[in-house]
């Protein structure tokens, strides 16, 4: 039984009605205690009455019996004898003895009788003297003439009128007895003596006691019955009340839950919920705080029956153990906190703000705890007279829990709605399928992409819709998932209409409420467009790369041209400076007169002249090249025989060849080699080629051959030598302007290295072509010239030899 140690008045007034209008537990208990006590008292009274009556009856019966015994004994005694006794007042004589024996006999005949005696009147009125006695106790001997102590014996006087008995028992150390008396009358009716008999009361008392104890047992049983019945009734009543209360609470919670399922703004719902809570609990003043998840602080969310000032006062301080706000303390402790009357802080604030609560109101704050974290606090206010008991706190806690669940569900529902609308509206395919690969859910995007209007996707096998690879024998998606526990990558989607498109998907395990992995969730999107774009980008990239490569190539060419031009300038400078050194040097020697002889002076002057001639060659080369470059080299072309020009060029080189000790041979046909030619330029070409051949040949021979080829009709001139040759890799660079075979500062054998470039240009201008071949370094060189045969009236066509490098 719940106890409430409270001396306060029963709930009353508008501030705190009993929740259901029913009597409180305390009232019921008091009522039942009272009823039980009354019943017990009544039963006691009845039992007492009966017992008293019966005892009285028994007592009367004992008295009558004792009186009758006294009368019987008195009747047995001869009156005359008694008279004699009265006269004598001595204990002697045969009559006395006879009487005494009679009395003793009488006494002995009746074991209950303690003593029998005869009393005679004394001289004083009311005084009786012993005349005869037959006592059981020899120690208490009385003798004839001893006064009868009538102090306690009130009925002795009544015995004159007839047999009677004492109303009360007498007692001494030997036990208790009831005395009876009977008169002995003479013939005239005068009382001669009174016979007294003391009857042992043990039996009478025992029977009386037996009866009384029986009555007591009966009463005790009755009392037990009454108390039991009372308790039983009380318990039933209390259970009924509890049940009613539970029903009420349940109804209240149900109502609260019903309120919480309504749609609407959260704050409206909270206000309605507070209404329901107020109705359920009977407390009208409520405040609900919610915890701001970000800041962790409490904020007032909804109130009931609290005015603006109170709401202002309720602004909570930071959550902590020492927070002055009760709500914050409750939030910190994560348990209900009540502020009782006289608790000090805080109360007066509300007393000022909420006048109807009176001075020093009671406050109870109950946190809503979720995952060990306070999410909200429900706070209740009551007047000082209405303290919060355990029941109240429990009820408020239930309400708070219900409220918390409701608020949480509202949040979840709004999240669910958000999620659902996302799943409906997103372009991403969302497909759920069970562990056997059968589809259980597909969002509209997935249906649009994979199904047609008639067929859904429900129950279809996921392996038929998504291919990890289109290759035959590739592992199906489900097998991949089972192996790897998930999948992320590109797949091929096969729609119900049997079309295909590429998609990028991620498949993860879905976990149900119990933490079991019960399904798969696939999220994916069609990437055909992206694929197309990627392809386009790819092709564009390739184009750009190609262009880039071409640009790079052109750039490399330009860089190369720039580099070779710089090299050309450097080399030209070098080639000009080297002979100049000799010119200046020898001229200085002559000028300063540092000569030993006239002959030496002559040799110095010759050195100066040779160097100057070399300078002239270099300068002419450079000028020729400049003309070639500018396209301004003018040729005086005319039809003629090439043989004289060939012979002249050979003769010009003969001295040098003789000096080097090599043979210089020439083979020309007897008939003229008719062709379009500028003799001076052809000579330049041949001098250059022959000069190179002689220069690069240290032993062996240099040979020049010319002939007319019939088909096609061409004049061929070949210059061969047995000199150092040209490495295969360098042959292609020979005719490139400004290029050198060797990029280092090792000097070329002669000139600026422009000879072959100028030569090629001249040959081409004469309509011919030039090519050079060498088996390699040290294996000699062979240069071939081909010119078209001159034909009357036809313009010589300029041809290009595709094997020559033209820049």
């Amino acid at each position, binding site marked *: 039984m719940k106890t409430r140690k409270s001396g306060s008045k029963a709930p009353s007034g508008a501030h705190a009605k009993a929740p259901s209008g029913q009597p409180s537990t305390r009232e019921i208990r008091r009522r039942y205690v009272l009823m039980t006590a009354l019943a017990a008292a009544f039963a006691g009274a009845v039992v007492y009455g009966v017992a008293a009556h019966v005892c009285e009856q028994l007592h009367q019966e004992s008295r009558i019996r004792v009186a009758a015994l006294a009368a019987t004994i008195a009747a047995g005694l001869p009156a005359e004898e008694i008279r004699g006794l009265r006269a004598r007042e001595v204990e002697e004589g045969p009559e006395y003895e006879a009487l005494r024996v009679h009395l003793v006999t009488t006494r002995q005949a009746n074991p209950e009788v303690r003593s029998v005696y005869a009393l005679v009147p004394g001289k004083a009125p009311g005084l009786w003297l012993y005349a005869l006695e037959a006592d059981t106790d020899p120690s208490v001997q009385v003798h004839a003439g001893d006064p009868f102590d009538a102090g306690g014996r009130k009925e002795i006087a009544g015995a004159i009128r007839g047999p009677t008995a004492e109303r009360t028992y007498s007692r001494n150390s030997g036990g208790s007895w009831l005395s009876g008396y009977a008169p002995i009358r003479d013939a005239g009716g005068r009382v001669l003596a009174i016979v007294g008999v003391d009857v042992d009361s043990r039996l009478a008392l025992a029977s009386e006691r037996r009866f009384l104890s029986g009555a007591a047992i009966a009463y005790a049983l009755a009392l037990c019955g009454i108390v039991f019945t009372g308790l039983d009734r009380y318990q039933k009543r209390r259970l009924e009340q509890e049940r009613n209360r539970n029903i009420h609470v349940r109804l209240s919670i149900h109502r609260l839950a019903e309120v919480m399922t309504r749609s609407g703004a959260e704050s409206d719902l909270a206000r309605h919920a507070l209404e329901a809570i107020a109705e359920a609990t009977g407390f009208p003043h409520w405040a609900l705080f919610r915890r701001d998840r970000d800041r962790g602080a409490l904020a007032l969310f909804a109130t009931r029956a609290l005015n603006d000032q109170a709401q202002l006062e309720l602004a909570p301080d930071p959550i902590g153990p020492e927070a002055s706000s009760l709500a914050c303390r409750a939030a910190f402790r994560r348990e209900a906190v009540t502020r009782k009357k006289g608790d000090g802080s805080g109360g007066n604030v509300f007393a000022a703000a909420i006048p109807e609560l009176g001075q020093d109101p009671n406050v109870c704050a109950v946190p809503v705890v979720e995952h060990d974290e306070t999410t909200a606090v429900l706070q209740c206010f009551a007047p000082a007279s209405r303290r919060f008991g355990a029941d109240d706190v429990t009820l408020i806690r239930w309400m708070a829990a219900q409220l918390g669940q409701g608020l949480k569900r509202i949040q979840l529902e709004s999240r669910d709605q958000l999620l659902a609308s996302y799943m409906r509206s997103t372009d991403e395919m969302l497909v759920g399928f069970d562990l056997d690969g059968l589809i259980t859910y597909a969002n509209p995007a997935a249906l649009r992409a994979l199904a047609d209007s008639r067929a859904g996707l429900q129950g279809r096998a996921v392996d038929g819709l998504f291919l990890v690879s289109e290759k035959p024998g590739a592992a199906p998606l489900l097998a991949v998932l089972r192996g790897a526990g998930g999948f992320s990558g590109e797949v091929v989607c096969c729609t119900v209409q049997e079309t295909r498109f590429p998609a990028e998907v991620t498949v993860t395990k879905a976990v149900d409420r119990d933490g079991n992995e019960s399904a798969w969730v696939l999220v994916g999107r069609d990437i055909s467009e992206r694929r197309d774009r990627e392809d386009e980008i790819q092709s564009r990239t390739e184009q750009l790369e190609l262009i880039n490569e071409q640009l790079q190539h052109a750039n490399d060419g330009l860089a190369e041209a720039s580099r070779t031009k710089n090299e050309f*300038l*450097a080399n030209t*400078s*070098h*080639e*000009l*400076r*080297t002979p*100049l*050194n*000799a*010119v*200046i*040097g*020898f001229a*200085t*020697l002559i000028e300063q007169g*540092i000569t030993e002889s006239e002959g030496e002076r002559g040799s110095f002057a010759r*050195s100066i002249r*040779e*160097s100057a001639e070399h300078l002239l060659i270099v300068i002419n080369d450079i000028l020729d090249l400049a003309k070639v470059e500018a396209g301004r080299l003018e040729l005086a072309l005319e039809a003629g025989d090439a043989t004289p020009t060939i012979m002249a060029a050979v003769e010009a080189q003969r001295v040098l060849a003789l000096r080097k000790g090599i043979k210089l041979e020439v083979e020309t046909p007897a008939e003229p080699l008719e062709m379009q030619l500028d003799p001076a330029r052809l000579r330049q070409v041949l001098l250059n080629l022959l000069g190179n051949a002689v220069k690069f040949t240290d032993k062996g021979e240099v040979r020049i051959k010319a002939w007319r080829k019939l088909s096609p009709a061409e004049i061929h001139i070949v210059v061969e030598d047995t000199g150092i040759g040209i490495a295969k890799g360098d042959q292609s660079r020979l005719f490139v302007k400004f290029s050198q075979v*060797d990029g*280092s*500062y*090792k*000097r*070329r*054998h002669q000139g600026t290295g422009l000879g072959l470039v100028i030569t090629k240009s001249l040959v081409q201008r004469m309509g011919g072509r030039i090519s050079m071949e060498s088996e390699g370094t040290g294996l000699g060189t062979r240069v071939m010239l081909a010119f078209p045969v001159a034909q009357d009236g036809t313009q010589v066509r300029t041809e290009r030899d595709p094997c020559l490098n033209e820049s």
Partner: protein
Amino acid sequence: MSQRILIVEDDPMNAKLFQLVLTRKGNYKIQITEDPAYVIREIQAGTVDLVIMDVSLSNSTLDGLPVDGLQITRRLKRDPTTRHIPVLLATAHAMKGSKEKFLRESGADDYISKPIVSADDLLQRIETLISKRGHAVPPADR
């Protein structure tokens, strides 16, 4: 005792010119060569006080490979037995930046461009290089 100068030059006319100028105006002993191995040998033999090195050499090879004056100088300056002999580059390569480039690449001690306009300048440089070398610490193993 007159100082000994080794001239590495492929152009005979220029070589002769060097010889004339240095013997008649400067009283030096002159040797002329195109052979790098000879240069190394002579320096190691202690018969050379200074080397005048042309850069463009058409006929010089070392270990079977054609080499120019810069490569020879580099070789001389890397070798502890030859690096103490001063090398004067005398070349017709006289573009902007050539001097710095050649001195950096070869490790030569000085540079003079052809045409050599002033014989006195040449002699002055030679004198400076030789006297500087006289103050320098000779190699430990010599």
